[in-house]
């Protein structure tokens, strides 16, 4: 079913909207959640919570991209659940992806007083704009969706080594960019 029709169902408050949403994007949402939580049951709970979140959000919201909208809710809930569950069990793909990013920020000092999370995110947006489409997608899939290297290799039809090298270069570029912008010292 077309996204716009699913959104219409939400506006009509039809429960069929949840079924259609689940049929169309359920698998993808579960994967996003599972990448972060590394637990299928938690991931499914998270996705169900996300459906409720979508139900409550639409209306009044009318997202341009239903997929992106749902994924963001799923990710937010998954990250919250992750922090709630444990900070010690670091064994998910999400942890590995975070570790990679942490290396950038840990090696430099973030001017936290000057730049809050939203502003830093804005600089990252600007940085992403400088990347070519493929590297940008790869970066987002890795650090937002928490896709594994293996999944990315399949998605981009290349080797895992190639993915790792390209991500590493992108991180280095990001680090330089943030230093240039004065976000990192």
């Amino acid at each position, binding site marked *: 079913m077309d996204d716009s029709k699913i959104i219409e169902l939400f506006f009509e408050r039809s429960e069929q909207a949840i079924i259609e949403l689940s049929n169309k994007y359920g698998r993808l949402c579960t994967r996003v959640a599972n990448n972060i939580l590394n637990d299928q049951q938690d991931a499914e709970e998270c996705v169900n919570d996300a459906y409720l979140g979508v139900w409550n959000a639409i209306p009044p919201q009318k997202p341009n991209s239903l997929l992106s909208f749902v994924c*963001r809710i799923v990710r937010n809930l998954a*990250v919250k659940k992750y922090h709630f569950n444990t900070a010690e069990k670091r064994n998910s793909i999400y942890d590995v992806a*975070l570790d990679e990013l942490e290396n950038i920020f840990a090696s430099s000092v973030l001017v936290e007083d000057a730049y809050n*999370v939203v502003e830093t995110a804005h600089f990252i*947006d600007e940085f*992403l704009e400088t990347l070519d489409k493929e590297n940008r997608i790869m970066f987002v899939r890795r650090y937002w969706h928490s896709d594994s290297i293996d999944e990315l290799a399949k998605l*981009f*039809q290349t080797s895992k080594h190639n993915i790792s090298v390209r991500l590493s270069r992108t991180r280095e570029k990001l680090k330089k960019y943030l230093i240039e912008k004065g976000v990192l010292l």
Partner: protein
Amino acid sequence: MNREKISETIEKINPKYIEEATEYQGKARNISQKAWYKWGAVAACLALVLAVGFPFIKNLNDRDQSSTRTSFSIGKTVQTGEEQSIAAEPSQTASASQNDVSKPSGQPETNHGTESSSANTSLPTSASVDRENVSFYLEGVAELSNDPIERTGAVIVRDYAALKEFDHFDAYTDYKYCVNGNWKNRYAYANAFDEDFFKNKALIVVFDVSPNSTYYARPTQIKTQGTKAIVTVTKNPSNGEYGMAQVTYLRYLISVDKEALEGITTAEVHKA
């Protein structure tokens, strides 16, 4: 910056990038490219096989055409097919049990055929050999053998049980067979004949032994002369003799009407 803040920062990147990445379906271009590589590799392999195999097959064919040395014929008028028959050769006998191999006598071939309207016609060339009467023939694949002796022989098989008991029957099932120009799988031979076949037909089995590429017997031919069918085989190039050792290489299976072979023993399949 701690992990939570990093996560939170990444979470707040522009939705358009998230959307772009979420909806990305992969590189279709590379998939087709990979498919091209795959099929290209298959084509290259095929070309290599043809390049290597064609001269080999051609060589075998050439040898088939060039190395006739002597012949066997069947010692009675027999019907080998709808169009041709085999002439009687009653004078040359050496009693032996069925499935024995004839001992070539060195006698010249003679034509006593009387039943066919095509009697006394000239010997056709190998190109005109009626392959319909050659039910099976093997080529191209030979079992490796250390046996340096090369022999060629023939035997009449009249029933299915005899065929199954025929020496190395099972071994033949390991090869590919060329049936009237069409390659069959390795089990074609075993599956080609059953008890029903032998109700009216018998087989003349012509075989080689020691199919070493250096030593294996020169290819055979089947010619017709009037009502006579001549199965041509070769002698051992190393010792110039005929005989039988270990049967390892089947040359021809010729189906004939069983009625026509009545009274003929294997020993009467002899050197013409």
